[in-house]
């Protein structure tokens, strides 16, 4: 049976998801909504045979739609998720999950109560190098992971100039939340636990008037003592520049990957991310379709959603206060 998907939002991430889903059997996008009708229509037409609209409520009420992929800005995530769950739709939700922990708990309660599947789209997990790392750790290749050190650098990425929603903390939750969650979730997943202490610093690369640091680092202390140092920077000089390095040190060995020197395309005309990082959206959408078809459980579990998001909020708080933030052990939800 083909799963019929409604796409909420028609921005950059939605287009990436649509492109990835186009190549996957077993599901297809049948409806697109966006508050901008032109954008909704354009994306629906590019998919072919998809209808479009501007009201997500109508889509959620449509019995011909099995699942929804919510790709809007974070300030709308909680309401859309709760309404979709109320209509029994399976949900894929773009990160970050929400803007605050109260919203997260309401959302998790709603999807649990409705009995629908809920996958938060932590795309970084689905980058090939990280899937490989997780597999190596799961196969006990390095023993218990004790330290994770990751440096993710790029040139300035945000579209929209000074209008970018990423500059508005009220809409995105702050940079340490909406991009910090990529790395924090990765650490929660690879180390396998919940952070209990978080510290962060950041800086504004290109303008002192940026309302948020475009570059930052976060330290995490996990309940079992493991620790992580995570760096995120948009301070590389050229747009399109890309440098990533990740190390996990375990009790018996270490895993390491760097994009430096990775074979791939280097061209002024096209500057794709290196192969070990490429293809995450396809992997992510394939996983979601597998979830929809009942083959697997969502890779991102509710307790991980909660633990990573609590740490991301703490990182944002730490950046503001200059102090480390201690978290009480997140409640584990099953």
């Amino acid at each position: 049976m083909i799963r019929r998907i409604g796409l909420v939002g028609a921005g950059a991430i939605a287009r990436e998801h649509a492109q990835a889903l186009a190549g996957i059997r077993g599901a297809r996008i049948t409806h697109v909504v966006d508050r901008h009708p032109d954008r909704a229509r354009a994306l629906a037409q590019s998919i072919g045979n998809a209808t479009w609209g501007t009201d997500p409520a109508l889509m959620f009420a449509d019995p011909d739609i099995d699942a929804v992929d919510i790709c809007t800005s974070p300030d709308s995530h909680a309401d859309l998720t709760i309404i979709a769950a109320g209509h029994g739709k399976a949900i894929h939700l773009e990160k970050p999950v929400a803007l605050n922990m109260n919203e997260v708990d309401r959302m998790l309660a709603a999807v649990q109560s409705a009995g629908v599947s809920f996958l938060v789209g932590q795309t970084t997990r689905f980058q090939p190098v990280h899937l490989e790392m997780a597999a190596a750790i799961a196969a006990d290749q390095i023993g218990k992971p004790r330290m994770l050190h990751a440096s993710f650098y790029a040139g300035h990425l945000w579209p929209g100039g000074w209008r970018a929603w990423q500059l508005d903390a009220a809409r995105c939750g702050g940079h340490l939340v909406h991009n910090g969650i990529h790395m924090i979730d990765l650490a929660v997943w690879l180390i396998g636990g919940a952070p209990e202490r978080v510290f962060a610093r950041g800086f504004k690369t290109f303008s002192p008037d940026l309302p948020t640091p475009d570059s930052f680092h976060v330290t995490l202390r996990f309940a079992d003592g493991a620790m992580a140092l995570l760096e995120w920077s948009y301070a590389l000089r050229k747009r399109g520049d890309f440098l990533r390095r990740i190390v996990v040190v375990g009790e018996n060995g270490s895993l390491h990957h760097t994009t430096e020197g990775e074979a791939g395309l280097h061209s002024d005309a096209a500057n794709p991310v290196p192969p070990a990082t490429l293809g995450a959206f396809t992997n992510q959408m394939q996983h979601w379709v597998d979830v929809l078809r009942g083959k697997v459980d969502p890779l991102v579990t509710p307790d991980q959603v909660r633990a990573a998001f609590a740490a991301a909020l703490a990182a944002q708080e730490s950046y503001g206060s200059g102090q480390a933030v201690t978290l009480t052990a997140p409640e584990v939800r099953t």
Partner: protein
Amino acid sequence: MSVAPSFGVVVLSAVRHAGSYLPVLQAIPDVRVVSICEEPGAPDWAHQDAAALGHRYDISVSTNVQETLDRPDVDLVLVCSEPVRHARLAMQALAAGKHVMTDKPFATHLADASALLAASQAATGRLTMIHRLFSPPIQRARAAVDAGHVGLPRALDIEWLASDGLSGESVERADLVADPGLSGGGEIMNFLTYPISTIRYLTGAEIRSVYTEAGTFFFDPHRQSGVEDAAMLSLELDHGILATITVGRVPQAPAPGAVSANMRLIGSHGHLTLDESQPVLDAWWPKERRGLPIGGDAGQEAVRAVIQHAIDDLRVERQPLFTAADGWSTIAAIDAAYRSVTAGQPVVVQSYPEATRDHHV
């Protein structure tokens, strides 16, 4: 034709790294290691180490410290004791009017570092320390910063992870890095000097605030003593520069050699990466692959160069690159790192003028 007088060196205690410094010293023309000296009250194993190295390198061994320090043919005293004796032995050698080069760390308490700094300021001899700033990749990085190629440095990330080595490969005795009675701390005390001095060398900025997470994850000697074997640090420097450090001893560092030593520096107008394991020539055989360091092993070259440069400087009465104030600053950062571990919060690094006021001499 005049003949340059030889430059006399005493190795004062030989329990730590002396085995790798002695061949470097003996390879320098006109340098003569006149004695290996150990304090009479030192433990038997320390005397055995001195005797073994004396035998191996055909150097006389003494237990009369003052008499050895007073020898007129001694120009430089190289302190290779366990870390807790560094400051006291260095001060004793300075008091004898000699130049002093001490192994790292500079001292194991900030008060000792302050006393040593004050002693060096009052001494006729000059004080310096073993460091790795002459490692070729660090020199290339400094040249790039000096040339303005990266603009203003904004952020640095340094990883310094050593692979085990506790069974005699890189550490003579595990207690020398894990028993606080000898080492003064754990691997923060042992290793943090390297990344801290690199950050200060490349930025010209002082470290103002330190946050540290530390753990004891991997090794029994560290567990038994209750000292850390690894740590992760967040630093804030002058000018809003940020730095991060991953440091420690792990079962296997992610590098082919004994140490994974690498850095990323982001500047306003460019970035650079540094890896002491690179460049490497890959050599392949049917059942083996080996990396041959191009231009030699960076760590060995750093040790050779720091000793060579220091002696070149001291022979013409010039202060070597690494000063007593630099040594003090590394200990101020280490002191802050440990205070942060205790506090669970970022702490302010004690600043240099306060130290000169508070010194204990």
